[in-house]
């Protein structure tokens, strides 16, 4: 697959006696929304954490954007162009919404201690650019009126969107969202869906872990289904939905 942005080849991860992932192989194409679904404990988040450098895979390798992705630390993953959000929101709670997004620009900016203290024209220009970009991104996710609100005081749905804005601030090629719709009501989910469509339209590939099967089915171009650490199906949502193996994994073999 020449157009694949990210490929995983035979990723395995074991925690003591638990085989969390068994030789997962998949490929995500550019500008697609790729869904990763599966019952609880199927290994979705583990795969996510292996990809984003929080865990090291025991076996297997990722390639990203045409080059192997062998990183030792999560910050290198962000530098390569993979940004993520967290299943349990991890914002910088005591920073404002704007500052949260500004932190996201860290990896694309250079100012060091001396530059920060002297604050020459280059630093000022960079700070200005960080500000502008952060404001644009807040507007993009519809949070501009909340830019001075502390992250922890934002309503839940806004926190989710702020996390996406912060991830987008790192200029990712691949945006990995870990259950972005968890705990959202129908209105919020549909606005999130619009946002994800817009992000894809702007050329960012999305990897989506989700429990909300309806959202995944309506939004994703392709999905992979994990169960007990194995990939049991992959393909367009409509096909996967009819796959008897998938139905069995979700419903435990009984007929719905």
């Amino acid at each position, binding site marked *: 697959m020449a157009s694949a942005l990210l490929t995983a080849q035979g990723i395995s991860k074991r925690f003591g006696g638990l085989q969390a992932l068994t030789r997962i192989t998949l490929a995500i194409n550019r500008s697609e929304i790729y869904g990763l679904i599966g019952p609880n404990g199927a290994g979705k988040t583990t795969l996510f954490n292996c990809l984003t450098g929080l865990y090291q895979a025991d076996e297997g390798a990722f390639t990203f954007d045409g080059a192997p992705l062998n990183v030792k630390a999560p910050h290198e993953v962000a530098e390569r162009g993979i940004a*993520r959000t*967290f299943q349990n929101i991890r914002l910088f709670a005591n920073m404002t919404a704007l500052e949260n997004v500004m932190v996201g620009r*860290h990896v694309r900016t250079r100012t060091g201690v001396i530059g920060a*203290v002297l604050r020459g024209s280059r630093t000022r220009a960079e700070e200005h650019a960080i500000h502008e970009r952060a404001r644009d991104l807040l507007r993009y996710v519809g949070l501009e009126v909340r830019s001075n609100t502390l992250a922890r005081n934002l309503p839940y*749905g806004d926190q989710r969107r702020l996390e996406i804005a912060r991830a987008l601030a790192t200029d990712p090629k691949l945006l990995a969202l870990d259950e972005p719709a968890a*705990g959202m009501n129908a209105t919020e989910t549909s606005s999130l869906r619009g946002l994800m469509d817009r992000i894809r339209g702007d050329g960012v590939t999305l990897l989506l872990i989700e429990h909300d099967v309806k959202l995944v089915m309506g939004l994703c171009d392709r999905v992979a289904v994990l169960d007990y650490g194995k990939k049991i199906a992959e393909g367009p949502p409509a096909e996967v939905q009819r796959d008897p193996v998938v139905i069995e994994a979700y419903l435990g073999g009984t007929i719905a």
Partner: protein
Amino acid sequence: MIEALKRYPAAKWLGLALVAIVLGILPFVVESAAGRGWVRIIDFALLYIMLALGLNIVVGFAGLLDLGYIAFYAVGAYMWALLASPHLAANFPAFAAMFPSGMHFPIWIMIPMGAALAAIFGVLLGAPTLRLRGDYLAIVTLGFGEIIRIFLNNLNAPVNVTNGPQGINRIDPFSLGGVAFNKPLELFGVTFPPVALYYYLFLALTMLIIFISLRLEDSRIGRAWIAIREDEIAAKAMGINTRNVKLLAFAMGATFGGVAGGLFAGFQGFVSPESFTLMESIMILCMVVLGGMGHIPGVILGGILLATLPEAIRYGVVPVQKALFGKQLVDPESLRMLLFGLALVTVMLFRPAGLWPSKVRKREFASAERASELEPEQIASRGEGAEGARA
């Protein structure tokens, strides 16, 4: 008030000029009102402000609880003491042969050297503790502080490097541009006593440290520190190299401590390990926490209060006791720490975020009001969303 000042730049400059005048004449006012001893106390308060601002970078910004911060103060002080006293020449013939009349480096070389050496020690402490947080980090840093002190205490044998518990004396007084700080200076018909000269030197360096702190806070580096404090994993995922950024926090914080230590050595003319006990580390931590962690003006306030309050109590309790009971019942020395502890407990109970916490809260209220004026329905629907999430 600060908003009003921003609207009128002239008022801002007027305010700054006013502050400059007050700070400029302070030693003379204090000396005539309370005696020269108090000018000395203010000199020490300035040193403590430097230390508190240094610790604020580590604890307040980066959220790394450091209980051994005084070690960097000790490193700066001993470096200065060794290089500016006859101690090394007296104990090491090779050193005496190399510098027959002593080193006597000028102050503008000594201060950066002290800062750099302390920064190296900061990295030495930071490197092995990168994976630790909270109470675990506190214990390791506490150990580090004690190791440094015990080394200084025992490094008089087999080779006498630090002169052990006796400490090092006969440290050169400062001199800058031919002006010796240990003699009164006549200038424009005004006599500046040595304590006042030290005051101006310390004030200048404190200003520099405040300036550096403010600039760092409002920068890419400062935001990265605060992000690590708030959520280290999220900070990593955002591409922050937490290892380097934490080491930088340790090094920067230590730098301020090293500078203050050097000034302390030159000011006292004498250093001994006694000045660098765990109690001192805790005192500086109290300044940071009591003033308002992570908020520079608050930390400065904390430094001033905690450096002067014990002295004020010491001077104040005897006349108060005489007025109340007609005689002195309790020794001021034993009452001092009691009242001081009581003050700490009271402040922490009633103002847990510190006396002067950061203005983020204020900004937050202002923007919430503005948002509610703009779009009440949207907020209401978001409120529901939050409810739904919790349900």
